[in-house]
């Protein structure tokens, strides 16, 4: 039997962070009890980030610049997919440059969506990019709002350079309704936490763990890392104790991230793999309408397989913010007065979008076959020598480093996160273009600053509910 398992992994956590104390302070007048939850910071998505954009960034981190051609399927798991009927995974696949022959599907509807998608891929034999990406929203002043976060983790599952193989698994399915969110709601309705902890996690998970251990022909003592996400504090420790587990209980990534829905199990797995040593076994739990349990064993290749950024790198790459109102606005929680300039139609010509897909999705500049000039966008003739575009070859700019030629902070134009930072960017290949710059701190950005490309929402068509995606530039690390 050929080896099959996790070959590569990566993660993305939004740079924007807010101290939970700021959230508690904003609600202190009506929910003073939140102060007790006000430890550390949580990640939150910028206005132009969602499950698709975070998924793209995590997948790119997992690929680490390696060729995407070996990926035959892309599976995106989330409970906050922006589209109900428009396959989100297909958008991710196009942005990471996957071939058109790739299989794509969305997995949704449960906190277990991420682990189930991973397990399904591991049980198949196809090289698959499994992405968990989620941005769960809690109502203002709810425990969810203060404890939730956002992020994405991605895994390439294949028979090549396996760093962690699946040695056993089990799935248990039931309808234990700890919380729910109807299809048209934005936030959860949940039942009493004590019941969820005692009747849910504490009873359902151990049964599934036992079945998985039996499948792997292992005992709990053979496991070094216990990885169980939960939006309930202490739930993982309680279950580990009940299982008589004596190894390392994985961090719930409360500080700097926060509970990231269906992505959270995969984020915690990625964080554990970043530290795992060859031979160590990791038990991963996914909870929601039952439980998934996956048992991995790290191979010798794990040492060389750490992602460029990963979870630890993402947590460190933080851009602290100080306004609760900003987080609330980005989450759609307030209808601010944006002025008449915001009335401009954001309608996307879907015909044009499809015609230009090759350039826009994968961010392909053209290299002139006649004079070698790399240019974006690709128009009908070379910008320099006027040779026809039939002689162009694609040069993907998404993984190229670039630098700021000029920039300005535009407070006049309508922008959901003012000011709009915009300026000319020069790529290493010589391409030059006007770009938006995102995640810019208070001190701004200077000429010569190094940039990398990120996939973001270019414009939200609020009238029709359609997001147009494109690439933006951002400083290499948050400053």
């Amino acid at each position, binding site marked *: 039997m050929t080896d099959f398992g996790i070959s590569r992994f990566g993660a993305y956590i939004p740079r924007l962070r807010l101290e939970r104390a700021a959230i508690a302070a904003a609600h202190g007048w009506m929910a003073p009890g939140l102060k007790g939850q006000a430890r550390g910071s949580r990640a939150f998505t910028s206005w132009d980030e969602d499950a698709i954009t975070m998924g793209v960034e995590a997948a790119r981190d997992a690929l680490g610049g390696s060729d995407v051609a070996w990926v035959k399927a892309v599976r995106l798991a989330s409970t906050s997919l922006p589209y109900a009927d428009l396959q989100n995974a297909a958008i991710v696949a196009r942005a990471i440059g996957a071939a058109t022959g790739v299989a794509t599907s969305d997995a949704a509807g449960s906190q277990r969506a991420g682990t189930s998608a991973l397990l399904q891929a591991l049980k198949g034999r196809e090289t698959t990019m499994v992405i968990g990406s989620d941005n769960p929203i809690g109502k203002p002043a709810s425990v969810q709002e203060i404890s939730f976060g956002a992020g994405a983790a991605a895994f390439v599952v294949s028979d090549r350079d396996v760093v962690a193989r699946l040695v056993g698994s089990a799935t248990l399915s039931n309808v234990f309704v700890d919380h729910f969110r109807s299809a048209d709601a934005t936030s959860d309705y949940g039942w009493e936490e004590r019941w969820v902890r005692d009747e849910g996690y504490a009873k359902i998970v151990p049964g599934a763990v036992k079945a998985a251990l039996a499948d792997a022909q292992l005992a709990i003592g053979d496991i070094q890392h216990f990885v169980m996400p939960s939006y309930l504090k202490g739930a993982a420790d309680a279950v580990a104790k009940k299982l008589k587990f004596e190894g390392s209980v994985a961090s719930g990534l409360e500080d700097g991230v926060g509970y990231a829905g269906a992505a959270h199990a995969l984020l915690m797995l990625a964080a554990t793999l970043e530290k795992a040593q060859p031979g160590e076994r990791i038990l991963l739990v996914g909870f929601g309408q039952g439980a998934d349990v996956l048992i991995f064993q790290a191979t010798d290749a794990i040492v060389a397989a750490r992602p460029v950024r990963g979870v630890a790198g993402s947590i460190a790459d933080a851009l602290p913010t100080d306004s609760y109102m900003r987080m609330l606005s980005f989450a759609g929680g307030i209808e601010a007065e944006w*002025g*008449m*300039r915001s009335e*401009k139609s954001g309608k*996307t*010509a879907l*015909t*044009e*979008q499809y015609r*230009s897909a090759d*350039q*826009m999705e994968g961010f392909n500049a053209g290299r002139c076959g006649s004079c070698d*000039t790399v*240019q*974006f*966008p690709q*128009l009908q003739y070379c*910008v*320099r020598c006027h040779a026809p575009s039939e002689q162009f070859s694609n040069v993907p700019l998404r993984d190229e480093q670039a630098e700021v*030629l*000029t*920039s*300005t*902070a*535009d*407070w*006049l*134009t*309508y922008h959901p996160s003012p000011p*709009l930072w*915009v*300026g*000319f960017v*020069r790529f290493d290949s*010589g*391409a*030059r*273009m*006007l*770009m*938006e710059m995102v995640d810019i701190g208070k001190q701004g950005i200077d*000429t010569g600053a190094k940039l990398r490309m990120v996939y973001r929402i*270019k*414009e939200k068509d609020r009238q029709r509910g359609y997001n*147009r995606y*494109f*690439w933006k530039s951002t400083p290499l690390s948050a400053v």
Partner: protein
Amino acid sequence: MATGIKDKVAILGMGCSKFGERWDAGSPELMKEAFEEALADAGIERKQIEAAWFGCWGDGINVGNSSIPAAMALRLEGIPVSRVENMCATGTEALRGATYAVASGAVDIALAIGAEKLKDTGFGGLPPPFKGTFNDLWMPMGSAPAGFAQLAPYYRSKYGTSKEDLKRAISHVSWKSHQNGVHSPKAHFQKAVSMETIMSAPMISDPLGLFDCSGVSDGSACAIVTTPEIARALGKKDLVTIKALQLATSSGRETQTNDWDGSYVATTRVAAARAYQEAGITDPKTQVSLSEVHDCFSITELVTMEDLGFSDDGRAVFDILDGRYDRDGAMPCQIDGGLKCFGHPIGASGLRMAYEVYNQLLGRAGERQLSNTTIGMTHNLGGVPYQGIAAISVLGLV
């Protein structure tokens, strides 16, 4: 071999409405003001106009598209009327159409009229333009000041200019235009403003503050052109002719390649070189008496002084601070207040500039009259410095 437009077409009459926040007037009323003044100046009747060019930028926000709004407002019965749009170069584009029609011999008398009604939008500033379905997919939607503000860092790094010196120079640009606007009865802003007020005004797009930005105005301006022979036959003694009319449009080289260093406007330089050749100007520093340039933002006027060859490269900061372009300087610029104070109803601006130069050349500029004016220039800049349209006219006495 093309011989150019020099002296083939004369201006028979011009008109300009009062610019400003014209709550009292729609675009038809504005056009009427300019048109009637031009007709009276030309000494002709409406029916003698054989063709017209109508310039208007923002069809979706005010006047409406096509030539019909102008033909109806002015009752241009049965003649060909064309609507042209070339962003902020629209007014000069309309003049170009009418001039070429006369020069070709197709018609004897043609009309160019530009109008814009910007104050019916409900907010200050310009409405965000539609970039086209393709550009919408990738191009950031910055405001106009953000586009022009980017000249500043390039300029400073190229010439080693300090932030403070550049800010002082661009503030002087606006200060000078406000000084001039005081004597311009049709101007939007007719009030002098102190350097201190300008320099400490709220920032719009660094380094451009509130007073570094031109006014957003309603207005209309108009020219009636014919051949010099017909003008003389109609009794005109002093003739202002068109010495050159040039336009240059970006092909994307500035935005898509690293050929351009961002400290100047390439299209202005190209159009200026052609205009000087067409007009037979070999030394603009001494041969041009006055100019009306596209000071949509103060930094634009600063680099334009170099792009037109009025200042040597890297010297505009010093020339401006030395008063070279002030009313009493060697090369007065924006003697009517410019876009900054006269106002900037986009489709009318190019024609408003020509109106001032025409009146200065004929000695009819009242309190603003300069002495010894022989050659005047107008300069329009549509779009943004890195992707735009430069339009230049050279006008002079025959």
